[in-house]
């Protein structure tokens, strides 16, 4: 439909996640290359059939648009603001404009930027650009990506606004040290990822997750120096074991923990979730939604299955007592026993969609019973979504979108604390209760709610 426009909050959330990383690094500085260069790729040479489409697909796999395309602006023209406490920086123009974009990059320079974080002028990129993951991209995929960005994208003669940062945070040289310490060489990265599996499906899954998909950027824990503690399956159980709290959303584990990981998700559940943002086991919300909207929903079926199968063989990082459905709460609610704190609120506000048995309704309303994101040690996500509401998104793969309303205006901190504790302790969830003060703190830092115009139209 022609009046459809992307919802700005989606991109904002993702960029904020990346911005947090940058803020932690305190290593900021960005400029455009001033070096003259020959045209990088002759525009009149014939291309192998399908190469641009392949390059486009690589850009989808890598989710380049998430940071480099600002909603409502030309594709890949950059300028997406990253608002930090110390100032605002903007993503770069990666369209093939020779002055403002990457039109003068040779393929080797392009590969060096994408995979090693070194710009044409030799300065370092921020590690918000996930080049430690992209280092794993094959030469063929880099070639396709390069051809796409030179020939399949329209040049945009615009520069992002100048970064507004104060010295010494604007200095760039410390980034090289970080790069040297934590970023692998292309050869070692590729070897490490490619040599893990003899099964071609698992090998493909490893390549997608560890490489272009850069899942670890959010889902792996980071050390105090903000490098990912593990970058491949071979690096041990920290890899994809959960990435802390970003923008008040808990980034869950993608490993096989029974309660808080993907232990009870089937391969098909993972495929459904990535393709549509919804599965019988749970729905996307928070920071994952833009990843599905801009990237994962368009992955090929084989690639989705490869990713799912790969994730399914990641051993649990923690041993957890298997979740078993406990019907006690359901029976109490059905007998109108609302004596438990939070039970009345749950019946009044939640049960219509999530049911008194906590099972939800298929891919329309997600379950709360046994849902990993409900049982994470940190309850921030559950509190956040009750306060702010959230919605799934209309996608070509699934045109309907479902909205959960915000309860910030209707429920007090105490009511939410009781409600969250009730949900976390019902139906066998057995997670810790939360305190009123935790809800208050999250409420105080709540990002701006979606306006009616940004909500789903169905």
């Amino acid at each position, binding site marked *: *439909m022609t009046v459809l426009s992307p919802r700005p909050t989606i991109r904002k959330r993702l960029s904020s996640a990346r911005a947090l990383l940058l803020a932690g690094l305190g290593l900021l500085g960005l400029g455009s290359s001033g070096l003259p260069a020959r045209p990088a790729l002759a525009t009149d040479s014939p291309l192998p059939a399908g190469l641009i489409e392949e390059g486009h697909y690589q850009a989808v796999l890598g989710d380049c648009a998430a940071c480099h395309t600002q909603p409502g602006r030309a594709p890949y023209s950059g300028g997406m603001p990253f608002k930090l406490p110390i100032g605002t920086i903007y993503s770069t123009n990666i369209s093939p404009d020779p002055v403002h974009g990457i039109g003068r990059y040779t393929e080797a320079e392009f590969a060096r930027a994408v995979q090693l974080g070194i710009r044409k002028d030799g300065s370092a990129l921020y590690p918000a650009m996930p080049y430690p993951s992209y280092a794993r991209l094959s030469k063929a995929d880099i070639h396709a990506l390069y051809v796409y960005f030179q020939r399949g994208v329209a040049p945009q003669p615009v520069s992002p606004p100048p970064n507004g940062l104060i010295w010494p945070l604007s200095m760039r040289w410390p980034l090289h040290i970080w790069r040297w310490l934590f970023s692998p060489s292309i050869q070692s990265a590729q070897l490490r990822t490619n040599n893990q599996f003899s099964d071609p499906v698992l090998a493909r899954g490893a390549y997608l997750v560890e490489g272009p998909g850069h899942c670890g950027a959010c889902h792996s824990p980071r050390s105090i120096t903000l490098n990912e503690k593990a970058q491949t399956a071979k690096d041990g159980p920290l890899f994809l074991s959960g990435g802390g709290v970003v923008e008040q959303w808990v980034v869950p584990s993608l490993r096989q923990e029974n309660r808080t990981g993907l232990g009870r998700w089937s391969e098909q559940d993972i495929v459904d979730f990535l393709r549509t943002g919804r599965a019988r086991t749970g729905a996307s919300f928070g920071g994952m939604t833009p990843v599905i909207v801009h990237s994962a929903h368009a992955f090929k079926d084989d690639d989705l299955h490869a990713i799912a199968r790969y994730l399914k063989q990641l051993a649990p990082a923690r041993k957890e007592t298997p979740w078993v459905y406990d019907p006690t709460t359901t029976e109490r609610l059905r007998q109108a026993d609302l004596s438990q704190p939070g039970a009345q609120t749950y019946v009044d*506000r939640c049960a219509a*969609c999530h049911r008194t048995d906590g099972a939800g*309704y298929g891919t329309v309303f997600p379950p709360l019973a046994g849902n990993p994101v409900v049982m994470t040690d940190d309850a921030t996500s559950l509190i956040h979504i009750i306060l702010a509401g959230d919605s799934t998104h209309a996608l070509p793969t699934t045109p309907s979108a479902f909205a959960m*309303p915000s309860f910030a205006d209707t429920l007090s901190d105490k009511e939410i604390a009781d409600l969250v504790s009730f949900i976390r302790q019902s139906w066998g969830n057995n997670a810790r209760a939360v305190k009123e003060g935790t809800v208050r703190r999250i409420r105080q830092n709540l990002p701006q709610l979606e306006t*009616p115009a940004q909500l789903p139209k169905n």
Partner: protein
Amino acid sequence: MPDETSTPTRPDVLIIGGGWAGSIMAKELTEAGLNVTMLERGHDHSTAVEGTYPGSIDELRGAIRKRLFQKLARTSLTIRNRPDQTALPYRQLTAFLPGEGVGGAGLHWSGCHFRATEDDLRLRSATIERYGENFIPKDMHLQDYGVTYGELEPFFDKAEKVFGTSGEASSVRGQKTGRGNIFAPDRSDHFPLPPMADTFSASVFRAAATDMGYHPFSIPAANASQPYTNPYGCQMGPCNFCGYCSGYACYLYSKASPNVNILPALRQDRRFTLITQAQVLEIMLDDTHKKATGVRYVDLSSRTEKTLEADLVILSAFQLHNVHLMLVSGIGQPYDPVTQTGTIGRNFTYQTITSSRVWLPEDRFTSQFVGAGGAGVAIDDFNHPGFDRGRLGFIGGSPIWVNQAGLKPIAAAQGSGGKGAPRWGSAYKSAMIDQYRHSLGIDAHGSNMAYRDVYLDLDPTWTNAYGQPLLRMTFTWKDNDIRMNQHVVSHIGDIAHAMGATRTSLNSLQPGQPFDSRVYQTTHLNGGVIMGENPKTSALNRYLQSWDVPNLFVIGSSAFPQGMGYNPTGLVAALAYWSAHHIRRTYLRNPGPMVSA
């Protein structure tokens, strides 16, 4: 949204009205590869806004202050009972409630989703075959649709699959199946979802009706009994019987609406453009008056007048507005009740509906707050084609049903106690509680025939905010329909007795009773731009194509030659799919009249 002052680009197809009919046509014609622009006079509506829980189930804002309904400040109509009276404006929404905004009446409806009977579609021919031509009262304009049940069956089926309709079939491809309506014609497939559960009141009615030898069945409901994904990939949640269907956007996404079931797919399609706040004033014609060139409309957001041209125009607003727009655009000949010439405004019909109330003993709880707009149990014993009207001397019929749709608090307080009950004090309160807990409603929801002096035309006095004459309704109840209603209601008392009623308050139309526009009845208005086989007595051919302007199709209940016993939406949807099918198959290849006049 398009810039407020700019004129949108020229589409292939213009669709006037964003309800069920318009959305179906838009979906079908974008599928055919055409660029389609839909003009809707109201705002966009979405579950996430209008349906946000718990604000969505605010009765004061919803049913009392008419949140989703037409804003009468800009345009209305005038009403009178007889041609010798002076009509006065309809200044408050009472008897019927046209919608406004994307989804139209399809957003605020209940969800009763019927097909038509075989006889409904050829009522004149069937009546003559059964009872002879003299059986038809003088001045009754009894007519056939020009399309048969068999021809429409694939489109009834398609609509049910798009709507996610819950129900139980009786006969599928000639095989007896389930306990559906035994009088319903054969189906090519089952309902896409199992029937809605019976409320307690409906189960009591079902048991009593069975004992009495009637044939109860679950009302086909476009309220999803389970989560559902339709052929367009649009998803519905399951109904929880909250009771907020009619007059509300369903917060569970379980009541079918254009907004939930069709528009999500259209909004993904670059060929589809939606322009809201576009009040169409006129369908423009070329000099020959045989071709529509586009529309003239007011962009209410910028208060500017705009025109938009297209090759094909689909008029799919609410019934009253379809008739009004035909009249003010000068398309076809206005109906004249004296000479009985002209077609636009002819065969305007409504629906006979009377609600009776039954009280059960105090140990039986009907819990009137529980409900769903389309759920319930009905009998068709007084509506099906074989029901012998010969000895009774009327044409038409009524299903009888317990359709417990959820009694809201304010409505319960307003309607407490039945006829003659106290209106204040402890007796009133006690009656209200008694009614809320132990009573149930039984409706006779019946047909309404067309008559020579019941029609729509333009009012000579009153104008709307755009300076156009208002539509004038001349309508009252006629003897045939009153006798039909009385006969059917006479059986409700017996059923109530069999249900163990301690008290009943039976209501029926009374002889000579005029139509009272101050009391809510239904929003099931029909006719005025009817389909048929003869351009002298119908405005549209059997494909809902204008006889006069072949690149104009007029879709909606405005095409019904008379009002049937069922709710109209299922037939509206099937006729839309039927028309679209023939536009795609025939008209687009060879634009022009699809039936020679």
